[in-house]
């Protein structure tokens, strides 16, 4: 189990050189800016068969990575190769490349079957109609295949997009937040579907901002923050990176001050301060969140404290990723 935290300037390139099998997807020193906005900055990685998760908050650059690989946009700098070809310029690449792009991406005037068959035929599938029927069955739209997509729910349209991407049996799949708009049962089913696509030997890159979802299907995770690739590794290692970090936790309950003192004395927390928002209780700053979680129950028993509230402060993906960026910068020095 390993995770690499890369420095800001292309330390991840080592992963490209280190890839044992010939990479199906190669991204080499790629930057992309739109006007004054830098969407991606010097990103390098390589992908082989299996599911890889692309994790990052909204606006981190996930969609830009996928658009570059899908050939929808060109890199401002660097090189993108999918199956050895340039997906932006060479149409032949798309014979073996399936994409669920960001946003909408269905023809509402056509039936699900008509548009999937159209794409199949335009990508060189011999029996386009049969291929369309089969893939619509696989994504669970068999019964609705001959209805116009304009009347579909968001979840059903999402399935149509998946069918569009899969109909020509591609070797490489790029899925940009494919579970948006799905209810939990659908999400579970589609996570299983994506996992099975990886088990079939396809190279799948799937973006998400939910680590738990990525963990269930990916063997490897790339983390993008503010346009940089800041970490990559196995899901469990990425979880440790994300979870085991300095955190501020709000503790409240009888005898909480004694508990805080003990935590401070034991070195589990670095500082203790009264909660400034008037809720009562204290804020403790722990350098390692997991150590705090392990220590609190035993120490609370020892001082007889009953905790009414144990609540992380500022706990969102933004702060998690911000931590990763700081850490990546530190590693780069």
């Amino acid at each position, binding site marked *: 189990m390993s995770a690499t935290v890369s420095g800001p300037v292309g330390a991840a390139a080592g992963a490209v050189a280190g890839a044992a099998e010939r990479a199906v997807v190669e991204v080499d020193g790629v930057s992309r800016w739109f006007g004054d906005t830098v969407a991606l900055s010097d990103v390098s990685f390589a992908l082989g068969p299996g599911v890889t998760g692309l994790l990052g908050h909204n606006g981190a650059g996930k969609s830009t990575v996928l658009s570059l690989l899908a050939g929808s946009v060109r890199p401002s700098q660097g090189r993108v190769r999918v199956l050895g070809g340039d997906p932006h310029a060479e149409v032949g690449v*798309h014979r073996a490349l399936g994409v669920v792009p960001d946003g*909408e*991406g269905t023809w509402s*005037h056509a039936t699900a079957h008509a548009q999937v*068959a159209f*794409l199949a*035929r*335009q990508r060189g599938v011999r029996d386009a109609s049969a291929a369309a029927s089969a893939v619509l069955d696989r994504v669970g739209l068999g019964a*609705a295949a001959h209805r116009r997509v304009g009347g579909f729910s968001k979840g059903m349209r999402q399935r149509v997009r998946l069918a569009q991407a899969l109909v020509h049996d591609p070797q490489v799949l790029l899925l940009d937040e494919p579970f948006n708009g799905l209810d939990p049962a659908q999400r579970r089913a589609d996570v299983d579907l994506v996992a099975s696509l990886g088990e079939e030997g396809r190279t799948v890159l799937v973006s998400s901002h939910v680590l738990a979802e990525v963990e269930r299907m990916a063997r490897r995770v790339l983390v993008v923050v503010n346009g940089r690739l800041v970490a990559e590794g196995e899901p469990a290692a990425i979880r440790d990176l994300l979870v085991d970090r300095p955190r501020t936790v709000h503790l409240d309950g009888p005898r909480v001050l004694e508990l805080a003192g003990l935590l401070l004395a034991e070195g589990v927390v670095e500082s203790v301060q009264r909660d400034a928002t008037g809720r009562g209780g204290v804020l403790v700053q722990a350098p390692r969140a997991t150590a705090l979680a392990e220590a609190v129950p035993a120490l609370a028993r020892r001082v007889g404290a009953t905790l009414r509230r144990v609540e992380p402060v500022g706990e969102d993906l933004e702060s998690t990723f911000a931590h990763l960026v700081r850490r990546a910068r530190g590693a780069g020095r």
Partner: protein
Amino acid sequence: MSATTGGTTGGTTAGTRGSRGGPGGFSTTLFGFSLRGLLVRGRTAALALLPLAVAAVAVVVLAATSVPGRYGLQTTLAGDLLVGLVVPIVALVLGTGAFGDERESGTLPLLRALVRPRWHVVVARTAAAWVSAVVVCLPAVVACAVVGTSINLPAGEVVAGLLLATALTAAAYCALFVLLSLLARHGLLAGLAYVVLWETFLAGLAPALRGLSIGSYGRRVVTLATPGDVPLGTVAATGVTTSVLVLAGVAVVAVALSSWRLQRMDVV
């Protein structure tokens, strides 16, 4: 897979199976799929009201005027209304829609990712816009033909002239507006400004400017279907044959530029 997507509207869907687009049929070709996409929309039906209005004007002309009085009106109907107004507006909406619709629905990346040269996509979609534009304009063409034959112009020339002018002008405009929609995000507005400001106003100010107006070449071609010596306000100075070649040339160059653009552009 999960059963969550099915049951909403019960088992009514199987009945429509097979009623449209056979396996790998017309509706799965590039052209067929593009044409269906343009025609299915309510917008195209609304657009058809414009040429129908021209037809209505023609009916009034036939009912209310004597034969000599129709000479000038035929020129107005065919030159100013059909070629000068209806064709550019219809071509504007359908031409910018050919790729504009795709950009709106997020399907443009899919069209860039087909396993065939991108100029195939441009040709198919421009052709679809062109064919649907000509079809939408047909009521006005028929109306102008009826008025033209009612003033004893040779029927063959009237029909040929009207069809040639409509088809070629529509081709040039459609190709131009397809290009415009690939170059500018708000292609429809840019095209509208072009039609209103340039084609109907500025190009009419000086004879030198008419050589740069698609409409003036179209109006020159439509003189085949209007009374011979009546001068049309803004026709191009060139002959009919040259005008035909210019219109076809504009279409071909615009399609070539659109192909280049689709190959190079980012779709986000």
